[in-house]
């Protein structure tokens, strides 16, 4: 797994592939325009197939990386080298991501199938470049393709890419406060279809994690698990008491204060090892006690294997 390399964005993105303030009523229309822009410039890949691959990837999980930013992507077998296209939209395009506002900056990444590291390098490079202060806003208000291109490439010519926790983490995950109730936690777990939620205090420090197993563990304590067969226990409503008191029980009573936390500079290869060896689904990223984000196994593996 590649962990460090220098990437020059200008090698993959030309001004002619920047679409300024596109008129797109849906994400499919936006993706169609971006694929079209690349297809006009590059030979050797099938436009319809490329569009289908990008849409399919987007259908599986929206690629909204941060507020206002999406990085749709696909790996194509008939592409010889990586390519980027950028679109901006002042009105915004709905990418159908739960809890996200419309997207104003879309960067399409197409990479050759036989170069799986290319996507990761470009992704990490774009993440670093687009994370600059006000970058999304400046791109959104750009009045021409030249201006938008200039904004994107005004930084250092080469961006040193380190594929580490900072580049693959979700810096805006669902979190709860210690004083939140169990009812809020259950709502957050179920509505977002997630299994782990970090608990963060008002100072932004990580206090613990609540996982779906913690709720199960409260209902099925260890001494019940000693029995080989629990089927003779009838009329047992394991969640009855939990749910009866859910609006007054605090998540602090349930959360686990033992979790795996790493600093943002931990390389991706170490993350892979932690996922494999510790059998965890979520790794917390912290700086001291300060909570920065999470790396979830599913999104991590999507980025590694399914880009």
């Amino acid at each position, binding site marked *: 797994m590649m962990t460090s390399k220098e990437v020059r964005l200008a090698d993959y993105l030309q001004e002619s592939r920047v679409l300024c303030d596109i008129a797109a009523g849906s994400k499919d229309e936006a993706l169609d325009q971006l694929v079209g822009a690349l297809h006009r410039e590059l030979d050797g890949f099938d436009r319809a197939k490329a569009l289908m691959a990008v849409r399919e990837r987007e259908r599986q999980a929206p690629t909204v990386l941060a507020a206002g930013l999406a990085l749709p992507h696909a790996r194509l077998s008939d592409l010889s080298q990586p390519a980027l296209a950028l679109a901006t939209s002042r009105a915004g395009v709905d990418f159908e991501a739960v809890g996200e506002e419309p997207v104003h900056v879309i960067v399409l990444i197409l990479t050759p199938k036989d170069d799986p590291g290319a996507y990761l390098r470009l992704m990490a490079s774009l993440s670093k470049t687009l994370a600059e202060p006000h970058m999304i806003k400046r791109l959104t208000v750009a009045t021409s393709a030249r201006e938008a291109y200039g904004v994107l490439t005004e930084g250092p010519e080469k961006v040193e890419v380190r594929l580490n926790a900072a580049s693959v983490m979700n810096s805006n995950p669902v979190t709860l406060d210690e004083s939140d109730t169990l009812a809020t936690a259950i709502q957050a777990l179920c509505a977002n279809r997630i299994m782990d939620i970090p608990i963060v205090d008002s100072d932004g420090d990580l206090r613990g994690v609540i996982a779906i197993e913690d709720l199960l563990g409260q209902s099925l304590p260890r*001494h019940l698990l000693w*029995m080989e067969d629990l089927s*003779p226990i009838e009329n047992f409503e394991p969640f009855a008491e939990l749910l009866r008191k859910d609006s007054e029980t605090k998540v602090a*009573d349930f959360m686990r204060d*033992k979790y795996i936390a790493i600093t943002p500079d931990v390389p991706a290869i170490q993350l892979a090892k932690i996922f494999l060896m510790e059998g965890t689904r979520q790794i917390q990223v912290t700086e001291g006690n300060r909570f920065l984000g999470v790396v979830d196994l599913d999104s991590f593996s999507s980025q590694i294997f399914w880009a």
Partner: protein
Amino acid sequence: MHGEDNGGAMTTKQLMRRMLLLLAISVGVGVAGSLFAGFTEKQVVASSVFLAIILGTLFFWTFRLSIAFLGLTVLIFTRSLDIEHFVASAELPVILFLVGMMIVVGSLRDLGFFTWVVQALISIPRMTGRKFIAATSIASALLACAVDEVTSIIFIATLIFQVCNRLKLNPTPYIIICVLCTNIGSAGTMMGNPVGIFIGTKAGLTFGDFFRWAFPIMLVALGSCVAVTLFWFRKELDLFDQRLKERVERRLSLVPKVVVPYKRGLAVLLFTLAFIASHHALEEALHLGKNSILLVAPLACAGAIMIFKRDRARHYVEREVDWWTLLFFMLLFAIAGTLEHTGVTKVIADGFVGACGDKPGILIPAVMATTAIGSAFVDNVIFVAAFSPVITALGETMPAMPLWWALLFGACFGGNITLIGSTANIVALGMLEKQSHVGVGFIQWLKIGALSAFVAMLIAWGMLTLMAPHMPA
């Protein structure tokens, strides 16, 4: 008993240093025995190897079995022990008794017996912190009598962790209370501790003897231990009460209460206990050797269980039986037998009589104190295995039964003195560290551990002195 030593994490240099120290001390003591006590060549080898085993458990607890294997090899090579004596001294019946009990315990867990006990403890009406901890510690002691101390503390500690987790309390004081009481309880029957069945076999004591002489002393000592520890940890118990009250006011229980089907598990336990308890009557009625039924009763029960739970039979034998420990015990008994075979224990017994005289009034506390102090730092099974031939030798000139009880109580109650004094201590503190990341300091334990052991041994000494004249010769 032994240090919590992660042998796997030891560097080769550390290993070699400890190994050299072990060899130097054990050989040095053997040579000193030759120079000052007139040990023969075989006595020197036997005492050196036995000391190496003791030091091996202190220095290399995690691979003590390796030391035992090597020690046995040395004894065979030096002709201090032959295969015939090895087999005779390995106490196979005791090992099989323990195998049978471990299988029975495994089935009791499967059948929900321990779950039922835990449910019963958390369902105490009008519960308070003191009531809960007193009931739990007494239950732990009695459970140790019925099964064994390690099994008992594993289940009881799990309950304590659950309750303390709900109440957001540091479980350390409550775990210490329960462990101290468990060690006391382990002296009540011959199933409570491996030293119980070993002493029973060596001394020819029956289940009835234990119930008549040891159990009442254990009960009084247990009462003292509960009182002393509850007083010692009174502030922590006040906090327990306060947290419990707050939770009850919020109408939240400690753990979900369920009706556990316990009857089959209870029946298995009662049948096993009844079988063991009736061994003497059956042996007399059937003209069988003394304790022959006692030693096979758990095996018979285990056999029946394995037929009824055919799908779990292999699991019981492979996973529920602690083969590592039992193999160590077997070699340990054989090596301790060499001490007797070569006459080392006779020399020690003579020295003991020379120092303490042959008056039971002095020998009872002397044996108890020596065993307690030894068991506080060395595996009590090792100490009892080494000391039992001394009691046998002493018994040639005086009534041996009070001395056997003194040996039992010294070994079991002495386990309370230090945090490495018994396997139950090690297991419980290991669980505590794993669950709560809390460590207990040596001195922190020593203060309450030594106090509770001292009070319990005073009681045992007094009661044994009163009971000794009524014991059979």
